[in-house]
C-alpha cells in the first residue's frame, strides 16, 4: 500500500517529458564562420542583396550593442553566452538563387516540415492557413503568396520584403522596437536573417490565418528572426507562430524581434505556440529564447491581442507588450507558460497606456513542474493623458510537485487619477484531493493531471484559433507525459 506523499513522486514521473521534434535534417549548408564583427554583418547583408539603408541600420545597431551589457534582472540563471562562438548565418544550400516557387523547394525541406506536421503543399492544406517556413536563417517557402496578393495582402519572408517592398520596411522597421531597445533586440537588429512580413491593406479582413513556422536545425547556430506585421486602417489579421528545434546537449540562442503596428480600427491577433527544445531531464541543452515582442496600437480603436503557449526552451525571456497610443485602443495578453525539469521562464507583458479610454487585459497562467521555475513579470503603465484607461490583470500559478517555483512581479505606474486597475493573483498546488477525486471517478493519474492543467489554462486556450487550441492542449499533455506509477 502506498503512503501519503506518493502523489509528489507520481507527478515527478509524470513530468518526465518526451520531445517529439528532436531530429536533425542532414542538409548542405551555406554558413559563415562563427563570430561577430562588422564584416559578418556586411556579409549577411550582401547575401540578402539589401539596400544600403538596411546595412547602415544593422551597423548602427551593432555599434550600439557593443556598448551594452547582457541584462541580469530576469529571474533566470544560465552560464555566460560566448557571442563569438555563435554562427550568425546558416542556410540550406540553394540550388540556384533560392526557390522562386514551391515546386523548386528542396524535397528534403518539404519532408522536414511535413514531419513537423506543417504541409507546404497548398493543395494538401485543409483549411485557410498560409505558411512561411523558416529553416535556420532563411525562409524556404511561403504558401498562398499569390492568392493573398490578389486582395493586396503581402505575406512573404522578411528577406523578400526587403527586396520587393523596401519602402515599407524602411518606414516600419524599428518603429516599435528600436535597435537601442535592449541587449537582445540590438543584437537581433544587427544580425537578423529572416522571418515574416505581413501587410494588410486598408479595410481588408485577411481571409486566412497567416503563420510562420520556425525551425532551428544547424548546430551552434543562433536564430535571429524578425517579424513585422502592419495592419492598415480597418483591417484584420490573425497570425500564428510555431517553433521547434533538434535535441542537442549544447544550448542554442534564439533572439527574435517581433513588431506589430495597427492603424485606426485595425486589429492584429498574434498567437504563439512555442515548443523549442527544452533540454533534457537533467537540464542539459535546450534553446535560450530571448525575445522582444511588442505591438503599437497607433490608431484609434485599434486592438492588439497576444496569446502565447510557452512549453519549450530551456530559458524563456519574453514580454509581448502593447503600446496603446490611439484613443480607445485595446491591448490583450493571454499566456500559458509551462516549465518542467530544469526549464526557466521569465515572461509577462507591458501595457503602456498613452491614449484616452485605452483598456488592457492580462491573463497569465504559469505551470511549474519538476525543478521548473516560472516567473510572471508585468508592467502596467498609465500615462498622464491616458484618461479613463483601465487594466485587468490576473496571474495564476499552478505547482506540480514541491521542487518547482512560481514567482510574480507585477509593476504598476499610474500617472493620472481617472485610471482603474484591478489585479488578482493566486498560487495553487495540484492537490492530492483533486487527483483522488478524478481517479475515484475512473480517470487515470495522467488524464487527471492533464485535465486539471487544461482546466487551469482554459481562459487562455479559449483565445487561440481552433486548430492551435487543439495543438496546445495536446502539447501540454505531451509536456507532462511520462510513466505513471
Amino acid at each position: 500500500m502506498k503512503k501519503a506523499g506518493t502523489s509528489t513522486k507520481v507527478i515527478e514521473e509524470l513530468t518526465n517529458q518526451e520531445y517529439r521534434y528532436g531530429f536533425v535534417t542532414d542538409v548542405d549548408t551555406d554558413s559563415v564562420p562563427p563570430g561577430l564583427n562588422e564584416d559578418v554583418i556586411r556579409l549577411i547583408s550582401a547575401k540578402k542583396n539589401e539596400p544600403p539603408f538596411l546595412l547602415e541600420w544593422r551597423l548602427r545597431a551593432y555599434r550600439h550593442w557593443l556598448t551594452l551589457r547582457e541584462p541580469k534582472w530576469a529571474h533566470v540563471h544560465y552560464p555566460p553566452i560566448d557571442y563569438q562562438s555563435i554562427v550568425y548565418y546558416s542556410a540550406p544550400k540553394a540550388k540556384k538563387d533560392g526557390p522562386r516557387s514551391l515546386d523548386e523547394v528542396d524535397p528534403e525541406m518539404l519532408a522536414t516540415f511535413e514531419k513537423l506536421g506543417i504541409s507546404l503543399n497548398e493543395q494538401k492544406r485543409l483549411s485557410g492557413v498560409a505558411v512561411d517556413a523558416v529553416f535556420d536563417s532563411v525562409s524556404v517557402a511561403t504558401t498562398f503568396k499569390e492568392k493573398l496578393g490578389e486582395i493586396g495582402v503581402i505575406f512573404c519572408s522578411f528577406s523578400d520584403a526587403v527586396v520587393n517592398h523596401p519602402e515599407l520596411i524602411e518606414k516600419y522597421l524599428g518603429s516599435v522596437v528600436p535597435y537601442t531597445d535592449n541587449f537582445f533586440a540590438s543584437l537581433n537588429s544587427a544580425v537578423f536573417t529572416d522571418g515574416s512580413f505581413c501587410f494588410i491593406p486598408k479595410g481588408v479582413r485577411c481571409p486566412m490565418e497567416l503563420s510562420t513556422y520556425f525551425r532551428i536545425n544547424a548546430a551552434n547556430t543562433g536564430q535571429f528572426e524578425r517579424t513585422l506585421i502592419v495592419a492598415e486602417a480597418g483591417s484584420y489579421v490573425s497570425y500564428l507562430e510555431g517553433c521547434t528545434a533538434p535535441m542537442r546537449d549544447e544550448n542554442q540562442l534564439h533572439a527574435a524581434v517581433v513588431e506589430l503596428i495597427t492603424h485606426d480600427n485595425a486589429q492584429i491577433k498574434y498567437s504563439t505556440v512555442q515548443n523549442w527544445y527544452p533540454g533534457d531531464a537533467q537540464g542539459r541543452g535546450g534553446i535560450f529564447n530571448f525575445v522582444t515582442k511588442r505591438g503599437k496600437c497607433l490608431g484609434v480603436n485599434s486592438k492588439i491581442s497576444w496569446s502565447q503557449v510557452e512549453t519549450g526552451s530551456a530559458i524563456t525571456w519574453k514580454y509581448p507588450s502593447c503600446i496603446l497610443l490611439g484613443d480607445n485602443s485595446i491591448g490583450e495578453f493571454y499566456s500559458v507558460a509551462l516549465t518542467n525539469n530544469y526549464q526557466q521562464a521569465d515572461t509577462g507583458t507591458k501595457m503602456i497606456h498613452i491614449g484616452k479610454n485605452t483598456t488592457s487585459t492580462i491573463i497569465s497562467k504559469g505551470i511549474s513542474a519538476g525543478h521548473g521555475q516560472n516567473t510572471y513579470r508585468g508592467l502596467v503603465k498609465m500615462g498622464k493623458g491616458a484618461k479613463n484607461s483601465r487594466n485587468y490583470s490576473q496571474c495564476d500559478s499552478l505547482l506540480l510537485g514541491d521542487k518547482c517555483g512560481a514567482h510574480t512581479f507585477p509593476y504598476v505606474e499610474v500617472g493620472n487619477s481617472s485610471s482603474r486597475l484591478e489585479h488578482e493573483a493566486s498560487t495553487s498546488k495540484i492537490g492530492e484531493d483533486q487527483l483522488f477525486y478524478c481517479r475515484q471517478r475512473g480517470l487515470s493519474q495522467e488524464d487527471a493531471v492533464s485535465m486539471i492543467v487544461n482546466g487551469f489554462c482554459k481562459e487562455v486556450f479559449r483565445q487561440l484559433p481552433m486548430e492551435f487550441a487543439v495543438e496546445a492542449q495536446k502539447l501540454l499533455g505531451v509536456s507532462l507525459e511520462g510513466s505513471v506509477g
Partner: protein
Amino acid sequence: MTGSKKKPILEVRGLRARVGGKEILRGLDLTIQAGEVHAIMGPNGSGKSTLANVLAGHEGYEVTGGQVMYRGKDLLSVSTEERAREGIFLAFQYPVEIPGISTAYFLRASLNSILKHRGEEEIDPIDFLTLVKKKAKLVQMDQSLLNRPVNEGFSGGEKKRNEILQMMVLEPRLAILDETDSGLDIDALKIVASGVNAMRDPERAMIVVTHYQRLLTYIVPDRVHVLSHGRIVKSGGKELALELEEKGYAWTEIDSPAPAAPTSPDVPAS
C-alpha cells in the same frame, strides 16, 4: 458453502489503517451482500471517512492489516481508478472543485473510462447529454450547473446533489455515501434520499455513512453499524438507528467489546 448462497459484494476482515501516523481503523469487520443498504453511524472522528477513503483506495491512508474482498477478489492491491472502473463509487463528504472543467465534460470522461474498461463503446456527447439531463431532473439539479466547472462556486447542497447525479450516471456496484446528508435542508435531503432509493437494485450494494438518524427515515437501511474508535462496535437492524438517536453514542462505548488485536493504550480493555 453451497452454490445457491449469495456471494457478498464486500467483505472486510480485521481492517487496520493509519493516517498521519495515527492508527484510525483498528480491526474493522463488515460484510455486505448484493442488494443491501448498510448504514454506518458513529461520532465525529470515529473513522467513518477513513473507512470510505480506504475502500476507495486513497493513497494517503496506509493499510497496516486485515483484508478486503470485493466481489470475491482482493481489493487492496487494486489502484484507485481500477476500483472506480470496477464499480466502486464514493460520494465525497467534501466534493472537490476542478476549475475550468465543466461538470458535464468531467462526468462524460468518467463514464467513458468506465465503459472502456468494460470493453463497451464510449458514449457520444449527444447521447450523454440526454442521459445526464434526465438524471439531473431526478435530483432536481439545475441544468445550468452541468456547464459550470466541477463544483466551483456550487452551494453545499448543489455539491451533494452533484455527487448523487454522478452516482446515478455511473451506476456503481458498490456506492459509498459519506455524509451526503450533512448540510442539507429537509427538502434537499428528501431529494437525495429518493435518488438513493431509486438506485436500489438486487445487484448493487450501498454504504450510507451518516452521524444523524434523520437520513435513515428516508433511506431505510437493511443493517445499521456503529463505528467507534475504528471498529464496528454494534450492528443491528434499522431500529438500531432509532435507539442510537435516543441514547446517544456514549451508550455504544460502554458496550464496546475488547479489541481482538493488541490495544492502543487509549482504549481501556474491559
